[in-house]
């Protein structure tokens, strides 16, 4: 009997060691430099709030720690969309002025491989910039650094919260350089194909309510043909 108990305890320790190794994996790459930084092309930068209560609308399956907004928005509870989240946000320029509307659809990706430090999310932005046009940004994001450096420490914290400074490049694809794919719709973006990168900056997170102080940024490369039509 004592051998069985010893074996079981050993297996638990082994599993815990594996989990710790995965969590503290020193080879995990935390992208903090945009792959677009090396490009010399003109780009469009917009920021948005990542705090659900500050968005125009945020909804998910209604069972996450994050509260939906407004209170009476419908939940995405149906089996096919239960892993999907929608955020409707005001997009702002670097001066903090509202310049457009962004609708972000995000769904957990089946390509997620925690053993490779990849918590992947497929997301698509439907963006409208008045006076400029519309576009779609399609990307694969990796939320592993976000989970590792913000969400898990917040849950471990006795105060159920995390405060600090986090900056991460969330976009991981589908572009070869780890960039998002941009398709222009109307206005000066009509017919455009380009690349983009999304990043996240966080200062505070609550394990009970979700993001407290957090904003995202989208950097979209504008091809020369697009600039010439301005």
């Amino acid at each position, binding site marked *: 009997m004592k051998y069985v108990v010893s074996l079981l305890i050993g297996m*638990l320790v082994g599993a815990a060691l594996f989990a710790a190794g995965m969590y503290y994996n020193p080879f995990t790459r935390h992208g903090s430099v945009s792959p677009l930084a090396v490009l010399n092309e003109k780009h469009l930068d917009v920021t948005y709030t990542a705090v659900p209560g500050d968005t125009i609308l945020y909804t998910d399956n209604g069972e996450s720690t994050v509260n939906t907004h407004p209170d009476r*928005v*419908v939940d*995405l509870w149906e089996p096919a969309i239960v892993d999907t989240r929608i955020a*409707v946000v005001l997009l702002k320029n670097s001066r903090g002025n509202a310049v457009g509307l962004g609708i972000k659809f995000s769904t957990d990706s089946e390509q997620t491989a925690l053993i490779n430090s990849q918590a992947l999310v497929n997301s698509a932005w439907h963006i*409208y910039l*008045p006076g400029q046009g519309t576009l779609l940004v399609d990307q694969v994001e990796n939320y592993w650094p976000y989970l590792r450096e913000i969400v898990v420490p917040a849950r471990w914290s006795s105060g159920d919260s995390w405060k600090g400074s986090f900056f991460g490049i969330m976009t991981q694809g589908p572009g070869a350089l780890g960039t998002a794919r941009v398709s222009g*719709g109307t206005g*000066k973006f009509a017919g455009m194909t380009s690349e983009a990168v999304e990043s996240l900056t966080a200062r505070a997170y609550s394990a009970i309510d979700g993001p407290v102080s957090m904003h995202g940024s989208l950097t979209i490369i504008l091809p020369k043909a697009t600039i010439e039509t301005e």
Partner: protein
Amino acid sequence: MPIFYRVSRLFKTFISGILLGLVGAGVLTYSVPAVDLHREPSLMTVQANGGNSETFRIDLPRDRILVGLVGTDNALPAGLEWPGDELFGNLQAEMFKIRDRNDVVIGVASRLANASEETGPFIEWVLHLPARGTVYLQMNLTASAEGHRSGRMIAGTRDFETLTGTVRERFITDIENEDVSAGERIELITTFIGQLGDEE
């Protein structure tokens, strides 16, 4: 039996357990998918000239998620604070759950329309089907005599990435013999075809 030998055997068992735990956790993490999206069978019709046609339905009002429009009393959901008209003018933003032909919810969609946009009026759809991908559609501004509006696919992601095609949007006001909770319906009928690849 000497106690050292017994402790040693116990310790070896413990070490074996650790190795088993490490390997087992590794195999489990590697082989069991962390995300397993629910899939509904795709209800497509093969077209005579190639490609597939698929019908997406939106039953109103039950599938509405958002109605954002300046100066309307029908903003949805209740408590929505829609930005003022100085920025978005006549922009009409709507979001819906979308269903297949069997009335099963299979995704979500956004529809943006602005008749007075200074760069040109537009009507656009983005259909997000979690297990399949996203489709970006642009509609013609003028509807046909039958009240249909046609459009084209601008871009697609994942399963739709290599496809091109068209879409027809129609608004049905009298639904017969259907779910009583639905009063009206928007139907999107897509016809997508794969691009011919280069022959090797």
